[in-house]
């Protein structure tokens, strides 16, 4: 029945909601933001063309630019590998056919379900230097707990630790991937005398490499967009010595607090170019380690 006349009409009919949304909320803003980045438009929508002024300004007259970028880069560089490795290990653990494993799978997904402002504030309480339970437990071992979110050295790391609690989405994608690996591959490996470790590295990893690639890219993209935690945990101002002033916070403050929408668009585009660079590097490297069937 498919492949008959009128199918093109039907295709576009069913796609129409998305096509409309794409045109209005993706395509048009995409192009308009390029134009905005060359203006000094304010929140009222009025502004003048300033050429490359915004771009030059970001590199020369805004110390916060480099610092924000550095903070976000640090976060992405540290959080991404940690979350992927941890997520994979947990998924491997959850993949076992142990009785009651479904209970654990649901329990491990709780953070994702409850993630938001509420839980973020909870973590602020947990890491409270005086009354927080983390420092309390550390003190039981005689370790003096650091000031966590109040310390310029520890604040960003605390955010990373907190976000590692929230990797349910990574886990579930890896879990799905692990369950798709054909059992006969493991059997063949076993017959060939492979140890569990060997079969993990030579059967499991290659077979799930597309999902590793997917999680990698998604984690990097979302990592640069992290906003709620720095905003809620350390206030909209960027934390101790601006150590948690992420690039997303910088864009938000620029556009919505200081009303400089033109400059904020410039920042967004610089970030986009950086993300594209990352994506391209991953893309090119994928030939060497992503196994496509």
């Amino acid at each position, binding site marked *: 029945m498919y492949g008959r006349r009128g199918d093109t009409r039907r295709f576009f009919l069913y796609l129409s909601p998305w096509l409309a949304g794409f045109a209005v909320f993706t395509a048009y803003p995409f192009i308009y933001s390029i134009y905005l980045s060359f203006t000094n438009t304010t929140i009222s929508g009025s502004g003048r063309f300033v050429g490359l002024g915004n771009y030059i300004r970001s590199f020369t007259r805004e110390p916060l630019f480099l610092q924000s970028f550095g903070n976000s880069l640090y976060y992405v560089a540290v959080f991404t590998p940690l979350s992927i490795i941890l997520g994979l290990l947990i998924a491997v653990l959850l993949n076992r056919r142990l009785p009651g494993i479904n209970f654990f799978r649901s329990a491990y997904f709780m953070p994702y379900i409850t993630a938001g402002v509420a839980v973020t504030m909870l973590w602020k309480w947990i890491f409270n230097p005086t009354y927080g339970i983390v420092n309390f437990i550390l003190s039981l071992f005689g370790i003096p707990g650091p000031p966590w979110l109040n310390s310029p050295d520890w604040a960003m790391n605390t955010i990373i630790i907190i976000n590692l609690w929230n990797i349910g989405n990574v886990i*579930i994608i890896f879990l799905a991937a692990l369950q798709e690996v054909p059992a006969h591959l493991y059997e063949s490996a076993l017959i060939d005398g492979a140890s569990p470790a060997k079969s993990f590295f030579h059967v499991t990893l290659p077979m799930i490499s597309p999902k590793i690639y997917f999680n990698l890219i998604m984690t990097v993209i979302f990592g640069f967009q992290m906003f709620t935690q720095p905003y809620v945990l350390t206030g909209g101002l960027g934390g101790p010595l601006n150590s948690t002033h992420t690039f997303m916070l910088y864009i938000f403050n620029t556009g919505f607090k200081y009303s400089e929408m033109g400059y904020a668009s410039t920042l967004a585009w610089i970030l986009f170019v950086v993300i594209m660079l990352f994506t391209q590097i991953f893309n090119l490297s994928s030939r060497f380690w992503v196994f496509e069937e």
Partner: protein
Amino acid sequence: MTIDNSIRGQKIARNIVLYVILVLLCIYFVFPLIWMLFTALKPVTEAYELPLRILPRHVTLSNFTRGWREVNFSRFLVNTILVAVPAVIGTLVSASLVAYGFSRFKVRYSAFFFSLLLATMMIPQQITLIPTYLIWSRFHLIDTYVPLILPSWLGGGAFNIFLLRQFISGIPKELDEAAFIDGANSFQIYTVIIIPCIRPALTAVGIMSMVYHWNDFFSPLIYLTSKKNFTIAIGLQFFQSSYGGNTNYQLMLAVAFVSLIPLILLFLFCQRYFIQGITTTGIKG
């Protein structure tokens, strides 16, 4: 005999180790929420008592009642429902329609549009954020719920369309054809055949969408300006630095915990469908 026993012993030992790790991780993932509840149940004096006690000595519900009244939480709860429910419905309806189009109607340009769909997943929110805000501003829709709900009705997110499309592609076309022979048009096939078959995936999308909209902080932050319109995520902010510069965690945690209960219940109710929806779609990276 002895070899069998030692192998069995090894297996049992290994399983014990695995269970220990599972339970430890379970504590890691669930304990913070339990700690939230315990702190909320403690009277003010106890929570700030050093050394810390885990279990409350006196259980009190005063934090819940006081916190609720202090910020008029009922209003925030209602607002959040007013935003989340239409948004989730919109996502389910439009994403499934678009996914049906992508999956069943392979016309000349369908591959191009599908690549376009995937590409949009890579565009960071910051790029479209500002122009989109300016658009809403020009139509005087700031401080309404339209910017928060309407996008969900126009496709509901590329990832959701992608997920559903993969799932629909797994349904045998023979079912469609049988219905067609019985005189069904494409929309009837969509409602009668496709929708019932993709229930697990719809559940997954529904839950993910509900979690997203219920917990969304950023969009309400920029689009809502008057207190009467705030959602829970923004409303919780009122507990920060409103008591002489110090956050009253107890009231806040109590109210926050209540705001999480609907999500937790929803998830527990649908978890089987949810896990099934994610794991059997064959998400190909």
